[in-house]
């Protein structure tokens, strides 16, 4: 009796374990956008494709927004996982129009059924309207088409988008805070994206600046140890580490240098948690 229990028990545990892991995998497979918010959707005329845009945020905020695009064949409803997507964000202010930095999906094959991409809305809606044009080349049906979706951009409680006119070359740079997105006490990933505005319709990623980041609690006047300055890792993304020794309001002070020339030393991001 005892022996049989001893033998059976591990099997029971094993099967429960398998069941549990299997279940969780199934769930992930079934819904790749679980926990995300659908920002907008529409049909790309000509491509016979339905386009859905998802975000891990509940709103579209001023600054860097990571989007996940899901494509469906508009006839069959099946997912389209082979496609070429091109984005064009447009700010229409009546008198003038300008674009904004963006990152098209890197691959023409979906990753986890979705096409990750990003748009950096450099200002909130209000003084004008944002639209996002999405051109889709559906590789399954080999049809092309596009759609234009209106997007409402709001300022978050603490700004995650800054810009400055560089002292060394007079160019305008746009800085987005990507990480920490959910800050906590401890070591946090720090990620910035830097774009340079070359023209109304040209906002390339910048890799020419070096960044120094010093966190500070404004109300206490203290910093934290062992931070790592963000360094360029590709496509205008700068990655480092920021350490928070307590919760509360932290200010990430940023200095930007171009070689030995100072670009700007006045910008900061506030993070409160």
């Amino acid at each position, binding site marked *: 009796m005892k022996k049989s229990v001893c033998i059976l028990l591990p099997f029971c545990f094993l099967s429960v374990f398998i069941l549990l892991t299997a279940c969780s995998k199934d769930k992930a497979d079934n819904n790749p956008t679980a926990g995300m918010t659908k920002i907008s959707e529409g049909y790309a005329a000509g491509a016979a494709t339905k386009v859905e845009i998802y975000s891990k945020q509940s709103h579209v905020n001023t600054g860097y927004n990571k989007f996940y695009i899901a494509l469906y064949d508009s006839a069959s409803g099946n997912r389209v996982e082979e496609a070429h997507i091109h984005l064009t964000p447009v700010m229409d202010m009546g008198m003038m129009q300008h674009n904004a930095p963006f990152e098209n999906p890197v691959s023409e094959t979906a990753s986890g059924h979705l096409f990750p991409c990003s748009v950096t809305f450099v200002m909130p809606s209000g003084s004008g309207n944002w639209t996002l044009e999405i051109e889709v080349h559906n590789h399954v049906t080999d049809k092309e088409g596009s759609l234009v979706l209106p997007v409402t951009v709001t300022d978050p409680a603490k700004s995650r988008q800054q810009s400055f006119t560089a002292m060394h070359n007079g160019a305008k740079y746009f800085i987005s805070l990507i990480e920490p997105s959910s800050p*906590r*006490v*401890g*070591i946090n990933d720090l990620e910035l994206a830097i774009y340079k505005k070359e023209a109304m319709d040209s906002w390339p990623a910048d890799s020419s600046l070096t960044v120094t980041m010093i966190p500070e*609690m404004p*109300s*206490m*006047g*203290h*910093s*934290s*140890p*062992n931070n790592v300055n963000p360094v360029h890792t590709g496509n205008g993304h700068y990655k480092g580490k920021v*350490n*928070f*020794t*307590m*919760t*509360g*309001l932290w200010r990430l002070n940023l200095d930007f240098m171009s070689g030995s020339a100072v670009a700007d030393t006045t910008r900061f991001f506030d993070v*409160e*948690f």
Partner: protein
Amino acid sequence: MKQLFLLVSFSLCLQAGAQVPVSTMSDDSSRSIELREIQVSSKEPGNRQRMLHFYRANQSSTLEDILSRLPELSLLRRGSYGMEPAIRSLSGGQINVLVDGMRIHGACTDKMDPATIYIEPLNLENLQLQTGTTGFVNGSAIGGTLNLKTAIPVCHPGKKINGTISSGYQSAARSIHDAFQLNYSANKWAFLGTASYRKSNPYRIGGGEKIAFSQYEKINYSFASTFRLNAFSRIKADYIGDNGWNTGYPALPMDVGYAVARIGALSLQHDKPGRPVYRWQVKLYANQVRHYMDDTHRPAVPVHMDMPGRSLTFGLFAEGELKLNSRQELHIIADASSTRLRASMTMYEPGQLPMYMLTWPDNRKNQYGAGLNWSYRADSNWLLQSALRLDYVSTALSSREAKDHISVLGFTNASRNEILKNISFTANRKLSQWLKSSVSLGYAERMPTATELYGFYLFNAQDGYDYTGNPGLKPEQSIQGEVSVLIHGKKGQFRAGVFYNHIAHFISGAVNPSFSSMTAGANGVKTYEALPGARLAGIESSLLLKPLSRLDIVSTLRYTDGRDHNGDPLPMIAPLKNTSSVRYQFSKVFLQLETETAADQRRISRKYGEDKTNGYILFHLRSGFSFLLAGKKTDLQFGVENLFDKKYHEHLDWGNVARPGRNGYVMVKWQF
């Protein structure tokens, strides 16, 4: 089932192997002293016990008053309450402070709650102090052990109720102290309950000024019961509760709003004189301390701050006393304990989210150890003793949040597992009828404390630095020796000793210029580092004279010199100090004159924010008599401390906060 059996057999093993000088002494305390003198300590504690007895005769004294008069002990003072004991200038994690053999970890990151605060003199049966070379048998420590033994319910044949009521007043702090003790025994059962209430206002110092935030208020209650299983065995249950509130710490930027301790134990004790295993006990215990510091009452604080802390300890031990033969005796102890700590700080800036961090990130320490003390009476002149102790200690951070905190300091693996080794040898030689000498050599180790390993920006008001822990710290190691002589005659005795203690990996804060201080106005951040070495050397002497049957003279003298590896003075070293008392017993009234003399302390550690402390001399006058009230013995005691209203502070007092000035006191105690 199997597990249960294992557990039972394990505990049986513990019991069988654990026979020795258990903490439980017989009810006759004088016998226990005599016993101890021969057996346990190389330090002739008989001398010490007599001194304790002498000072305890002043019944209005607090435990701290009594402790401060022992030459081996000094007290670190941060407020008028909760002074931290130091044995030969070693304190905190360097020593064990036990209550009935139980480990109690304070819940205060500023060490405002040493375990000594939970024992009122009324509830103190006896006090064991073992210095370095023998003080590790109960737990690896380099500085010794202070074990406070609580009062034991007294068993009388038949039913009997007796007790004590006392009440006292002290003028310097306009403080009151009321205490009540009740003993009830009925055949096999005996109960002892004590309750005590203290309320103290801000005290006045020499010259008349009042020290703000030096008030405190607390109640302490204890309940002990024994059930006699047979002529030799009994089961004992103990509970101690202590609630303190509105406790000011003038030397710190914060006070204690509320502090609660709950201490419970269950033990099985066996006492059978004449048998080889003549005494043993097994004890299971648990205690919890909660401690809430805040600065609500302080004026002009930049940011309001709360600092709650909690400690939880479980443990068990088995110890026994064993007579191997007519010459050899053994005291064995095996024990295990687990301590969990967590303390946090929250600051409130209007209009912002609260600033919250863990100051003791959740951590636990598990300890398993065994120790023994062997004594061998080689002949009528030689007594050889050896003590051994091994501990396995494992510490770790116990939550993700805690690990995240410590990762900020640059440590990814904060777990520590150490085996701590301790050994000592003592030779006692009777040189003549009136002269004894003792030589002792030892090696001891101690684990770094939770603060030293995991402390997270803990502000030290003494040197003005925030301290951060270092999970990589090695255990401190100490090599120490002491020599003492005891001269005793019919009219008294004199003991003098010298000690030397070399400590390797001495743990100390080192300025860390790359860190920025968290506390507003702090001088910077220090991280605990191990200095290559430090040394302590000192002398202690005590004189007990009874030239006439009515006259007692007690005098102690101590001096310690502490240096780090560069020869710079160590902080918190008391200067040369003498305490002398003369007591004369008239027919009913006694009169006692006491002096306390301290030299200047010029050997100071500027690195730790110390400055020179002036010497002082104080005079205390005490008197008292006994009479019958309603047919029961009543003691009335009164006196004046600091007779000449001297304004002074001791070198170990944080923040140079002056001590009380002239203090008149009166105390009445009625026994029924």
